[in-house]
């Protein structure tokens, strides 16, 4: 399906559907294959090249859009994983309400004892007939309080080395035994949660992929997470650097040579990072994917942290204040919303969430540069025998 076909299809769809009923319109758009054109026909797509989505988005620019704030984990991580590993029934059941936003998703991966070393996680899933019984504790779960479903990795065989004993499930967040507790953060609000799973029973048809293959399934999710965090198409001088540049432009009285030098350096770094992202997308379109994606998230974290700190410094007295420390549950993950003090604090998480910067450097060094891995003492030891 080429660009002209897709444009034609999008125009015909637009002409034949009334956007007044938002949900009905979004459902019909999914059914017409105009949700994500690179997905297969029947699952919201047309089996077309990913970059042709822009054609659809342009044609349907004036109709009800997704509200992607709460949907980031569903769209960015759950959907590609379900597409890659789900059965036909699972794809049919989950993808449409995920895309329309009727059902929100969260991610039950990290645990108090399993952060960078995710594969050492301890949440157990024990088979009981056609069901699995899940017990454990998850943490840093963004948006669990909104979610209908979760993607969950749990240990199904503690007797084998850690990577081999995992399985991947869809967790019903309404099932008995699922308890979500807000986790207050340094910003004052709770975007994350702790999720306690106590005797949660999940039918076997909520398993994604084979028993024991959970690590491989999770890799698909994590790769998509890093693309989602580091990606994004910004214009020159836009994004975080644009906000800080505006602070500079609006406050001539606050300008010093030191701030100016730092701003110019960060402007250049933001621009070359933007260009690297644009080059990466051009390579993808030309069918020659490059490995630069893994660097984008590293740079994004560093730049956000530097820029938000500089912004507060430029504001002087104003930078000494804070909009509101009231404890509340946030509506969505938001890196730029609220005020500069919030942005400064929130950015500290950018080098931790979705793979720490140190883990990403290991990944680049080993997978892109081909450097040897560190010796691993836990590789061949059954998980149950590991020191912890």
């Amino acid at each position, binding site marked *: 399906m080429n660009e002209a076909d897709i444009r034609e299809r999008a125009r015909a769809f637009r002409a034949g559907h009334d956007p007044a009923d938002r949900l009905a319109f979004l459902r019909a758009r999914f059914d017409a294959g105009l949700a994500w054109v690179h997905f297969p026909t029947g699952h919201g797509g047309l089996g077309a090249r990913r970059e042709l989505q822009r054609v659809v988005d342009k044609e349907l620019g004036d109709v009800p859009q997704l509200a992607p704030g709460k949907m980031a984990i569903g769209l960015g991580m759950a959907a590609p994983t379900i597409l890659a590993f789900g059965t036909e029934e699972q794809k049919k059941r989950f993808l449409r309400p995920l895309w329309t936003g009727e059902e929100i998703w969260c991610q039950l991966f990290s645990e108090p004892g399993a952060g960078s070393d995710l594969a050492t996680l301890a949440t157990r899933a024990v088979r009981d007939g056609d069901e699995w019984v899940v017990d454990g504790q998850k943490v840093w779960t963004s948006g669990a309080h909104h979610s209908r479903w979760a993607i969950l990795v749990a240990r199904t065989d503690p007797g084998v080395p850690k990577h081999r004993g995992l399985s991947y499930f869809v967790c019903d967040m309404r099932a008995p035994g699922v308890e979500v507790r807000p986790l207050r953060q340094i910003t004052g609000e709770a975007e994350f949660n702790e999720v306690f799973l106590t005797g949660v029973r999940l039918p076997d048809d909520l398993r994604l992929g084979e028993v024991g293959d959970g690590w491989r399934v999770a890799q698909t999710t994590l790769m998509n997470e890093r693309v989602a965090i580091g990606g994004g198409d910004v214009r020159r*001088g836009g994004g975080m650097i644009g906000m800080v*540049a505006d602070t*500079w*432009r609006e406050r*001539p009285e606050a*300008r*010093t*040579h030191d*701030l*100016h*030098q730092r*701003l*110019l*350096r960060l*402007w*250049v*770094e933001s*621009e*070359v*990072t933007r*260009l*690297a992202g*644009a*080059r990466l997308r*051009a*390579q993808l379109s*030309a069918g*020659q994917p*490059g490995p*630069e994606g893994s*660097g984008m998230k*590293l*740079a994004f974290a560093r730049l956000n942290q530097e820029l938000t700190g500089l912004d507060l410094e430029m504001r002087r007295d104003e930078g000494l204040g804070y909009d509101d420390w009231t404890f509340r549950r946030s509506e969505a993950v938001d890196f730029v919303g609220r005020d500069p003090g919030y942005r400064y604090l929130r950015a500290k998480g950018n080098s931790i969430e979705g793979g720490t910067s*140190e883990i*990403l*450097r*290991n990944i*680049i*060094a*080993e997978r*892109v*540069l*081909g*450097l*040897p*891995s*560190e*010796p691993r003492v836990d590789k061949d030891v059954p998980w149950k025998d590991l020191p912890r």
Partner: protein
Amino acid sequence: MTDLLYTQVEEELRAAVRDVLADRCPPAAVLGRIETASPYDLDLWRTLARDVGVAGLLVPESLGGAGASAREAAVVLEELGRAVAPVPFLGSAVLATSALLAAADASAEAASWVRRLAAGEVTAALAVPFSASPYRETGDTVTAGGDGALSGRVAAVAGASVADVLVVPAAGALYVVEAAHAGVEAAPSLDLTRQLATVTLWEAPAVRVAADLAGVRLALTAGAGLLAAEQLGVSDWCLDTTIAYVKERHQFARPVGSFQAIKHRLADLWFDVARARAAARAAADALATAKDVTEDAALPVAVAASWCSDVALHAAEEALQLHAGIGMTWEHPLHLYLKRAKSVQIALGTPGDHRAALAELADLPSPA
């Protein structure tokens, strides 16, 4: 829209240049040449200039050139940087040629030199210090007498020692002086693979080819943007060579490249170089497509020049540290890259000069 990739034609040109350099300019040959009386390899230069045709890349077909653009010249410079090739491409085929080309419409003399340069018959140098930048006036050390003869002195001119002809900014206008009428004295240069020389003129017969220095500013802008491609080539060599070394070198019964202290430095360097490639491509594309180079390409050139200068130097410094003792030896070619990287950081505007230009270009006004 900016094309940040390499076209097939560009890749073919790269392969042709790389083949010649692999054959004629291996590190041992460069190391062997630098302390001789002729540090520039003029045989190699003739092959590249005439047979591969790199001398005429920026020259339109109507003046006997290849009618290519800065995009192709950038690919050549990436390869020359990767090999620290001692040839006067940047000084002759980029700086001097661009300045003369800007004058060629109005001056038959300039057009005739451009033709000879494009054919690889002659080599030229732009008589400005290699540290000149697009943001400062040039030509203030040379005066023109009533008869048009030039007198004065220009220090640190790249490629002057092998130039047949000098393109000289003097007193607000542009002149051509045959090298035989000038005193050219080479002195030891930090960069052993790009010898600099002092040009002395004493009532030297000169032909005026332009009444202003717009062409020089254009040449310096193009030069700074294309130097970013050379810096990318230097960075590529340093990164690749260091990765290969840390996989091979063992300490504590492990390859040193398996230690995170080493891996993390190389991972960061890799992404710095990846961004340098994007920036250098953006600058070359802007130079190739700009209607008015000094207006339309100024911002991408300043971005690439500031970023790639710092990255190339960082790559060379990291390469030295990660090679440790062997990196300190004269025998290993790494020092040639360090010396090139430090010299070109200063050349055609320092990173700070280019960032200062961005204050205006990106609307980030200086403090009062």
